[in-house]
């Protein structure tokens, strides 16, 4: 919490400090609705035009298990969910024991005194505030003997502590619980008001966020999974297929629910292979379609993905990465699918890989992926991850009227058509959809066999060589059109921290931290993983060390997956990596400490 000013007066128990940001960690069990508290705080921040970022962990057990939600709200730029919490709200002894160390020294631990017994040795390190949340909740809703609703009671306590906008929160609660049984809204509001009105003993101050600068555009608040799914809809995709797997399922649930409103459909298939096959069938039928998965599901899709490369069929595959291999750690973050995304499958099967860096970027990346797939008639993989999928961020509402696309197929008859024309301008060919009349009477076959220009099978080594070159060169063409990323910070220095995907925020924060300590550190975020944009080597040249920070294993040869790709691309021994596989997002301090240690 960055204290700016304090309006404290001696012996005033209701002292209020103005703050610019705060990290609140809520720890409990997964059925306690702690995500709901976090969600309310995030959406309130969004409506207050504040920056917000969240981080959650969910157990992979079927019911119950420890779960946390961390929300960082700031009046300025918020790049990560925060290394340390200012406030820890914990419901149980295990939440207290496991998360007390995530609290900043002197931070506030707000605990449910019905369940938590504070540790003696912690009392001097953190400010302890006990509230009998469970029993007070039961009291607030009329003594039904159940403490369901204690999350909303706790939200009331937090609202009091941070002097949050009560009318806005009340409205959010009404929106969330409205439409159901009216007694549910009434109960929720009773809980909230109970918590808000509770005289917290031992809390010597409350906080107030400084007003954020008006950004102009109203903000929307959503998770990365939601942003990807809505981006796919905005891009004009109207058909998709998928199979449930965590954390991808949420995207397919949303598309299944929403697409019919747009005249589209999303099919739940019998397996992962059917899902990608059906999506490719949908693309072949004339309109780029979508599928997606996580973990093992991506492995299963690779054969069909190879077909899409070979047949030059556009399709968008969303990979919400999780801990692997095999079933691995289904609800944890990892960036270990870069290799399979870029190279998975037999044979030479070029494809495009994009990795969004934030929730907002998920929305726009989905549209970009669809358009690259259409323009280059190629499979495109979007590499999201568990952390970005589940975290909630606020971002300016997109200009949907101008962004939403119509990508309906064109059935205008053609004179003649070569689906794999080797003389095509730019080396890129696009398919005509079934339903298109071909005057010559020669109809195309989309095929996974090596083929001639008309799509008929060939055993010719010459054609295989030419077609391999065609499939590869069109992605080189794409590479030449990709924007070269900009360095965050100075363009010359000691260490360039390179990241991809959801690590962008923590890396930029590490750069800020490093520079504040006098280190010549800069950052570079790579969004276009395959093909890489041209000219990265020029950016590397300004630095003594290039350190790729990624959440995967260093592998047999000591480099993370992107680092290995960059080393093979640039043959540059300055490229090294810091990696980790603890299933959690980067801590800003860890990035900096480890990168500096590597380059001393």
């Amino acid at each position: 919490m960055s204290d700016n000013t304090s309006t404290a007066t001696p012996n005033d128990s209701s002292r209020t400090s103005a703050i610019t940001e705060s990290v609140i960690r809520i720890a409990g069990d997964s059925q306690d609705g702690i995500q709901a508290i976090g969600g309310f705080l995030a959406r309130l921040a969004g409506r207050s035009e504040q920056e917000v970022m969240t981080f959650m962990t969910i157990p992979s057990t079927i019911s119950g298990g420890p779960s946390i939600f961390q929300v960082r709200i700031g009046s300025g730029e918020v790049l990560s969910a925060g290394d340390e919490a200012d406030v820890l709200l914990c419901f149980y002894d295990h939440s207290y024991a496991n998360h007390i160390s995530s609290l900043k020294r002197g931070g506030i631990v707000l605990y449910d005194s019905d369940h938590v017994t504070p540790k003696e040795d912690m009392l001097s390190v953190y400010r302890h505030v006990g509230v009998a949340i469970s029993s007070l909740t039961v009291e607030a809703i009329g003594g039904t003997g159940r403490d369901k609703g204690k999350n909303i009671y706790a939200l009331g306590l937090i609202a009091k502590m941070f002097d949050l906008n009560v009318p806005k929160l009340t409205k959010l609660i009404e929106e969330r619980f409205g439409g159901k049984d009216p007694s549910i809204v009434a109960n929720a509001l009773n809980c909230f008001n109970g918590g808000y009105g509770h005289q917290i003993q031992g809390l010597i101050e409350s906080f107030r966020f400084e007003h954020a600068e008006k950004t102009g555009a109203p903000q929307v608040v959503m998770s990365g999974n939601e942003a990807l799914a809505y981006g796919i809809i905005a891009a004009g995709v109207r058909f998709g297929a998928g199979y449930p797997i965590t954390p991808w399922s949420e995207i397919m649930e949303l598309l299944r629910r929403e697409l019919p409103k747009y005249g589209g459909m999303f099919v739940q298939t019998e397996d992962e292979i059917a899902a990608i096959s059906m999506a490719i069938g949908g693309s072949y039928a004339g309109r780029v379609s979508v599928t997606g998965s996580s973990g093992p599901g991506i492995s299963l899709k690779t054969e069909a993905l190879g077909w899409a490369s070979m047949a030059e069929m556009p399709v968008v595959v969303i990979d919400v990465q999780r801990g692997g291999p095999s079933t691995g750690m289904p609800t944890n973050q990892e960036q270990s699918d870069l290799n399979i995304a870029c190279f998975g499958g037999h044979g030479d099967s070029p494809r495009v890989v994009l990795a969004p860096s934030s929730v907002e970027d998920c929305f726009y990346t989905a549209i970009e992926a669809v358009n690259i797939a259409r323009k280059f008639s190629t499979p495109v993989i979007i590499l999201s991850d568990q952390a970005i999928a589940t975290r909630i961020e606020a971002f300016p509402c997109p200009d949907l009227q101008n962004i939403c696309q119509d990508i309906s197929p064109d059935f205008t008859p053609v004179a003649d058509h070569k689906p794999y024309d080797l003389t095509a301008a730019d080396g890129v060919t696009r398919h005509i959809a079934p339903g298109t009349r071909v005057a010559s009477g020669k109809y195309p076959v989309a095929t996974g066999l090596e083929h001639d220009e008309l799509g008929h099978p060939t055993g010719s080594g010459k054609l295989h060589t030419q077609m391999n070159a065609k499939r590869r060169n069109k992605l080189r063409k794409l590479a030449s059109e990709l924007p070269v990323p900009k360095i965050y910070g100075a363009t010359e220095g000691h260490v360039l921290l390179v990241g991809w995907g959801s690590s962008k925020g923590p890396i930029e924060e590490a750069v800020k931290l490093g520079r504040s300590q006098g280190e010549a550190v800069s950052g570079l975020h790579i969004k276009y993983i395959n093909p890489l944009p041209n000219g990265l080597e020029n950016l590397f040249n300004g630095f003594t060390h290039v350190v790729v920070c990624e959440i995967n294993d260093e592998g047999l040869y000591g480099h993370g997956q992107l680092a290995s790709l960059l080393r093979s691309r640039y043959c540059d021994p300055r490229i090294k990596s810091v990696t980790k596989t603890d299933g959690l997002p980067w801590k800003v301090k860890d990035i900096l400490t480890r990168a500096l240690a590597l380059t001393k």
Partner: protein
Amino acid sequence: MSTIAIPNETLPRTGIAATLPAPAPLADADRKPLTKKETAADHPTWCPGCGDFSVLALYYKLIEKRKMLHENICTVAGIGCSSRFPYFVQAHGAHFIHGRALAFASGVSLSRPDLHVFVFGGDGDAFSIGGNHFTHTARKNIKLTYVVMDNFVYGLTKKQTSPTSPIGFKSKTDVGGSTDRPVNPMKQAISAGATFVGRATATNLPHLLKLMEAAMDHDGFSFIECLSECIEFFPGAFDAAIPRKGGTFTEIPAEHDVTDEYAAYKLCDAPWPGVFGTFYKVDRATKNANEAKLITDSRAKLAGVPDWQILQRNFDRMK
């Protein structure tokens, strides 16, 4: 937000020869039925005498007889000898991966109800590697016609045991004779929920054509198992069903109630070479129709609302 600028443009079409005249503006009704010359494409790569030739010839005939238009026919196949089918037909076609033709074709059928979607394949494609898709495409009752040219052997890979090989069949993977119980495709299809289930041979052409027509007219997942001899690796496999070779071709009696599932199961157990015709045929809502209804219902309150505004409403709720 910086993203690379690939604008919302109508992309130029490629691979189109500019030198050829534009297609004649002929009304569909005035177009003549396609002749075999117009529907035949590459010369089939099958061995002389292969049963698959008959199925192909009848497909041409079906297209001609039913006055289907080139551009509205979509022929899909997986991997195997019979799955080379799309190359031999002048129509939009896709040669997909092993076992997954039905899933691919489902994507075509569901998103494009205006097309005639035909899937051709073999027994390995249908009942082994693609077994799961066979079950679920039948269950979902996706509107398409699936003809399996069943030769009881893997032909393309040169004589390995297939899921329909009879017990005792000697192959390169069962030199002492196969011991695994073969799949009964009719039973499999009926129990999976296929709404049209028929059986034919590649040697009784009028019967096969009649069945293919009935399958095509069926609104739902229509499946035909067509016994099609592999002259190279399982010659004589179906002689018992060929009268000119001393066998008997027994048609399902006219009094069989095609909507009676139990009666259909009983037919499946008829002694070798079994019976031929329509085993089972019922009307059940297709996935295509169910999804269309879902779309109609979802859009009932959205008439005239542009897509971006539908999305805007969702975004407004997330503010």
